[in-house]
């Protein structure tokens, strides 16, 4: 996989060229948008330097709102992941229970869980609790289906080996099924990470008085005055989602470096 230095340099050059090209296109497009007399032009497409300026100028506001949204998403993500992993391991112990629950967990993947945000807000009457609940709920389903599948992923010969060692149910779980479930569990966590953030943001967007989503809504409602924060909040949110996914990948590398996907530098 080692690249010749020349190739590496060329790759960097191409990447730089693409970045410059995109920025140039952005400036031209922004110029076109701003040259009209649209009062919302500054919100619709600001100049790249304007966006950076916004983020720097509003850094304390953005940091506070970002932390509100992220904190609850992280708590919910952790709660959902722990409950999901634990309950899947329990469910996998009784075949009839697993068979009874799997269709519902599968169906849950096809349902826009986000629709529960207004309902949860109505029940809890508390934005923080709602954010945590929604993030946990979404994470739970992604993680539990992944773990249930992973627990079943070991090949039959491996079970035969375990039984030839006279390993009981507990030992088979500890030494075969749980390690086999780790890669799929991380896939589930990777999918759930940005989703938990989306859940948390939607609470901001639908009537909460804080968080990144609230900043964005305020930016739209207050017209050009609020324009400054719209792009900043959007970029912070995208960055947080990216970082959450990368954090899961990083943990995966540390916890399960033997994972085949990682060995080949994929994922």
């Amino acid at each position, binding site marked *: 996989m080692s690249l010749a230095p020349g190739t590496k340099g060329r790759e960097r050059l191409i990447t730089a060229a693409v970045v410059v090209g995109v920025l140039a296109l952005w400036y031209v497009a922004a110029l076109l948008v701003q040259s009209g007399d649209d009062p919302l032009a500054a*919100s619709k497409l600001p100049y790249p330097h304007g966006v950076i300026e916004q983020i720097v100028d509003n850094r304390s506001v953005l940091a506070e709102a970002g932390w509100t949204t992220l904190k609850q998403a992280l708590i919910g993500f952790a709660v959902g992941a722990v409950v999901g992993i634990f309950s899947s391991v329990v469910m996998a112990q009784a075949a009839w*229970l697993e068979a009874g629950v799997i269709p519902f967990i599968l*169906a849950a993947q096809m349902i*826009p869980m986000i629709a529960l945000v207004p309902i949860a807000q109505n029940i809890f009457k508390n934005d923080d609790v709602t954010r945590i609940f929604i993030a946990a709920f979404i994470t739970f389903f992604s993680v539990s289906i992944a773990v249930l599948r992973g627990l079943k992923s070991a090949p039959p010969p491996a079970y035969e080996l375990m039984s030839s060692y006279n390993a009981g149910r507990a030992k088979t779980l500890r030494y075969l099924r749980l390690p086999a479930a780790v890669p799929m569990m991380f896939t589930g966590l990777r999918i759930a990470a940005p989703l938990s953030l989306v859940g948390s*943001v*939607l609470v901001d967007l*639908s009537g909460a008085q804080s968080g990144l989503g609230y900043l*964005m*809504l305020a930016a739209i409602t207050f017209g050009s005055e609020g324009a400054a924060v719209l792009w900043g909040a959007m970029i912070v949110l995208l960055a947080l989602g990216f970082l959450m996914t990368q954090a899961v990948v990083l943990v995966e590398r540390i916890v399960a470096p033997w994972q085949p996907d990682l060995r080949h530098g994929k994922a």
Partner: protein
Amino acid sequence: MSTATATRVRNVVAPLVIFVVFVSLWQAQVFNDLFGLETFAIPLPDQIVEAAGDNTAELWRAFGQTFTAVLLGYSLGNGLGFVLALLLLALPHGAARRAGAAFTAFQALPIIAIAPLVALWVPDSLWFKACVVTIMVFPSMLVYAWRGMSGVPPESLELMASYRASTRQILTGLRIPAAVPQIFTALKYTTVLALIGVVVCEILKSHDGLGYEIHDALQLFSTPLAWAAVGILALVGIATYTVLVVLERALFPWAARRG
């Protein structure tokens, strides 16, 4: 043989039993008592069904508004993703790989963050929803279709070359058929993305559709109606996914077995 039948019976009976027990407990207000919540916070199943029955016309109209936007955005997004995957295929391999990696990363972003911005650009309610869905959906189709089309075995490509097949013939005769399982994976996965996108738009800004219905019903304290709308969304999600699974099995049985 008998164990296989027993497994099959268990796979049908166990979920049914759990469903019946769950709904019965819910109807008997066990959950409400457990969490100390009144029935106006968590309505009972019969209240939800009754609310759905009393508001059929309204729910039907909202469903139509939601589903039109889902279909439009879903078709545009998947179409765009597929066309971009074809373009990626035409790029030199290294560039295509980098672009593919970039879109894979893009896929993991909370793309819904751009919804408020799209709302500024596209004031029309239907197109606002469709645009958000398109932007959410296309990266998945792009990545899956591109992986499927570029991942054909080299021997097959050599065979096609030995037949002097044109690029177009390789595409229609080898690459696209080989990508069918991945394309269906993307088609199935993006149904729920499309629904999420539309519902978020409707809760955020639109004044129509099932998402708004949920919001509006809660404002008017008719919780059962809100739950009915959530139930319909759930059914729509399950139904669209099921339709795709059935389609895949009917049209491409070989792909369904592999996927």
